[in-house]
């Protein structure tokens, strides 16, 4: 579904990703794990078009999407839940959801999608008039995911959804990801927390210092856990 090859990207003259390749099949959950500063967020931002790559190609459903602006990529069906949630704190929950469906002009379809979201996240319906800055961390993460789902994406990119959440809440988020997969959504899950990510994903890539260090099925990688931690630490020093 998504095919990345030889991707080089970064900020201005600084190169962060050094020619990496990966693919995701329809319906899969693929984890991208790696230490802080490895370039995971940069990878996701490049996919959605916030950053224009220096080199390489990104094919989504056999169409090239590199160097396209975010609105184009979103329209093709890829939505990103950014790191640190970044809900619009001064907007109400409902307004955040409306922003998520910014490209949807048909108001009855928008209404339907909001009902669907409220089914999925009853908490958000209860609080739909509340300013989202006043929600708890877990609720904000739900809102961030809900907002991304408002555009009816085919593929969802999640950047460290468990960051800064209490373990109980992390469970909720994991359940949510599982139920989204059942609905047929393809998911890229970026995490620093290796075990949690591997438990729910099908395959995984280990990203260290801007290159793919290891890849394979999640169960394989879980078995070779020790090696993987070496790959982590080996680069950190």
């Amino acid at each position: 579904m998504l095919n990345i090859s030889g991707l080089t990207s970064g900020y201005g003259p600084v190169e962060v990703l050094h020619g990496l390749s990966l693919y995701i099949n329809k319906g899969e959950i693929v984890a991208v794990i790696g230490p802080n500063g490895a370039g995971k967020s940069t990878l996701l931002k490049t996919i959605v078009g916030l950053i224009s790559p220096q080199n390489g190609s990104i094919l989504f459903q056999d169409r090239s999407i590199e160097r396209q602006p975010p609105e184009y990529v979103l329209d093709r069906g890829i939505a990103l839940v950014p790191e640190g949630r970044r809900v619009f704190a001064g907007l109400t929950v409902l307004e955040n959801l409306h922003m998520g469906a910014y490209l949807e002009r048909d108001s009855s379809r928008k209404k339907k999608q909001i009902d669907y979201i409220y089914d999925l996240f009853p908490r958000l319906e209860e609080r739909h008039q509340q300013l989202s800055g006043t929600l708890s961390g877990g609720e904000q993460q739900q809102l961030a995911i809900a907002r991304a789902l408002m555009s009816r994406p085919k593929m969802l990119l999640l950047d460290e959804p468990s960051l800064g959440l209490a373990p109980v809440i992390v469970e909720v988020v994991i359940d949510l990801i599982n139920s989204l997969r059942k609905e047929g959504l393809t998911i890229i899950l970026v995490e620093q927390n290796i075990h949690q990510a591997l438990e729910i994903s099908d395959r995984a890539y280990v990203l260290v210092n801007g290159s793919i260090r290891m890849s394979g099925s999640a169960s394989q990688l879980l078995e070779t856990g020790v090696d993987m931690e070496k790959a982590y630490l080996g680069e950190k020093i």
Partner: protein
Amino acid sequence: MTIEVAVQQLINALSLGSLYALLALGLGMVYSVLGMLNFAYGELLTVCGYTMFLLILIGVPFPVAGLVGLGMAIGVSLLIERLVFRPLRGASFISLLFASFAASVIIQNLIKQLISKRPKVIPVPEVFDQMINIGPFQINVLSLIILLVGLVTLAGLVAFLQKTRWGLAIRAAAEDFEVTRLMGAKANRVIALSFALSGFVAGVAGVLWLSRRGAVSPTMGFIPILKAFIAIVIGGLGSLKGAVMGGFLLAFIEVALMVMLPTRAVPFTDAFALMIVVVILYMRPEGLISIKTGS
């Protein structure tokens, strides 16, 4: 002070306040979306003023001239965005500030060269100077007009920002520009929209400002932008609500000083007002409404 005078001063303060609030909202709109101060904002009022001056000179009635002036302010605002700020997308705060500073000097000098270096008088409709009686109170017509137009424009803008899809995008961009792009809003379009709105507000404020002043000059934009700048800083840079509040607060401080200061100190009103503003900022370095706490 009699109750009549107090009410008159109150109306003055409200009228001046709605003008300052408009000015601040226009400057704050671009600041909150782009994170930059547009120093050429004052020149939008100048452009509006000179358009009106030229039209009135050839016999166009005041209200029509005002509308065309308003349109020019929007046009020039968009032009500045396209020619100066778009090539500098992503530049630092200080670079953008200098660029807008330069744009303002260019516009001023163009006016000096194409029209005149000297101030010019604009004949305003006579009814502006009249007083009307409402109950026991005598109130200046122009103050009432400014108050009304100011409040209606503010209400219209608030409705636009609250109720429409584009308004929502502007408010979202004011919070987090990058995520707004992620939601599918085109960056250039949101920015251009904020400049258009900013130009619109400057145009309305320009017509009102001219009605008060009755004259145009190439450097007339300095005072309005100064007031707008002060107002948005008092309000808390980046908050649209704060900009409006800051505008009213500044007007109340000024009117209060004008009423209370002894005659000998009147030339120093501006200095005193600024001193009070600096004291407010000293006590609340983030302004009245801090973005970070979101309160």
